[in-house]
């Protein structure tokens, strides 16, 4: 399993620290000169900083979900309890990042549109992911036998995973139909996909994306290793 050596950990810590400091501290001015100045976008202003944190967290929670689903499939194939362990660990982290993503998104929504929740397609999607994580853990808590618990939660994660394409296609259709008052810029794919961020912001954004992903893997490997040690401890009692 990934056992990050000391260089990675130091690099990661520095990277994320830099991202956080730069993301928050670089001033926004009307005429950005050089790397340490962000463009001032009317309507967005300081709120643009959210993109450095909110999007990577959302991305990580989706990544974690698909990893949980992948290990669920492996568990069903091999019945090896280690795969179930990986599945749960992944899902736990995914839940955490999902909560963070929902909260940061909600705060941004408050400052941008005036209310904490708006049911726009992406907000709703992250909320549904939250519901799926919640259902996954509620299901696990309702089953006592280890094997049954691993198998049933793996099946559920696969069923949930299979509905994801429907979210991607169905949500934008539905939301624009029911909520014609949504702001135009949210109906598009936004600054991330269209890459119309200023170059220096782009750099920090990708640094954050990579940083959060590495952070996820680091925490994931820690969780796995502690859980395995716990297992060993219990079975030698």
């Amino acid at each position, binding site marked *: 399993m990934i056992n990050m050596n000391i260089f990675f950990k130091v690099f990661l810590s520095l990277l994320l620290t830099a991202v956080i400091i730069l993301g928050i501290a670089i001033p926004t001015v009307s005429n950005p000169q050089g790397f340490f100045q962000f463009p001032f976008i009317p309507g967005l202003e300081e709120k643009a900083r959210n993109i450095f944190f909110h999007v990577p967290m959302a991305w990580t929670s989706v990544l974690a979900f698909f990893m949980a689903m992948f290990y669920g499939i492996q568990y*069903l194939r091999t019945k090896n309890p280690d795969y179930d362990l990986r599945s749960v660990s992944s899902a736990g982290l995914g839940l955490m990042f999902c909560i963070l993503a929902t909260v940061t998104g909600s705060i941004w929504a408050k400052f941008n549109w005036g209310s904490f929740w708006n049911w726009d397609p992406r907000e709703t999607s992250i909320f*549904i992911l939250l*519901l*799926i994580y*919640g*259902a996954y853990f*509620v*299901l696990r808590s*309702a*089953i*006592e036998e280890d*094997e*049954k618990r691993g*198998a*049933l939660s*793996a*099946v*559920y994660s*696969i*069923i*949930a995973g*299979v*509905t994801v394409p*429907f*979210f991607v*296609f*169905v*949500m934008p*259709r*539905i939301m624009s*139909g*029911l909520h014609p008052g949504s702001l135009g810029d949210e109906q598009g794919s936004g600054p991330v996909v269209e890459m119309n961020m200023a170059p220096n912001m782009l750099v920090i954004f990708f640094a954050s994306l990579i940083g959060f992903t590495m952070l996820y893997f680091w925490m994931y490997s820690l969780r796995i290793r502690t859980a395995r040690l716990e297992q060993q401890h219990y079975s030698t009692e």
Partner: protein
Amino acid sequence: MMTGLIPYQIFVKEIISEFRTRYALNALMMFVVTTLTMVVFSLGDNDVPYEILSGMLWIIIFFSAMSGLSRTFVAEEERGTSLTLRLLTKATNVYIGKLMYNIVLICSLSVFIALAYQFIIDDFVVQSQSIFWVTILLGSIGLAGASTILAAIIAKANTKGTLFPVLSFPILLPLLLTCIRATVLAVEGAFISEALKDFQILISFAIVMIAASVMLFNFVWND
């Protein structure tokens, strides 16, 4: 022997069992009637926009499905007959038989609810009946398609009752939202061509859910 008939035999068993115990007729019907009454009273004399009425229709259908679709598996566990059934035939046969039963059950329920809804609630006037009823049908099949394997999952857990809606809601949400949207189109009297995209989504949802269930059911049903 003609193994293609085995799922049908299981389907027939479920139907006969239903007639003898009359669960759907008693408990489910009372649930539907109670819910419809509540809705009518809460709407009162107010002018309620048809978008909201469309949404409420599917809320009622969703919760009726939640009340009724898990019984076919939970009853087997509770009465100790699931082991008997597992000794008789393969998992896939059991799944298809029970799926067919759930489809028939939820289609009957939703047709009844939809008829009662149009009849009782004056503000709800559907101009395109064809879009409306195709939506009811496809939506019901999708509901049954996803709910059957989820019912099999919760039947093996401890707190069956409340677990079923919790697991089902995120999965069924794309289906429900599409059904609501298509119902709105039906009320507005849109052309069928406008609703085709929604029908495509409903059909593919049902196919995907049933295909995934057939592949995964064995892991749920057998230890």
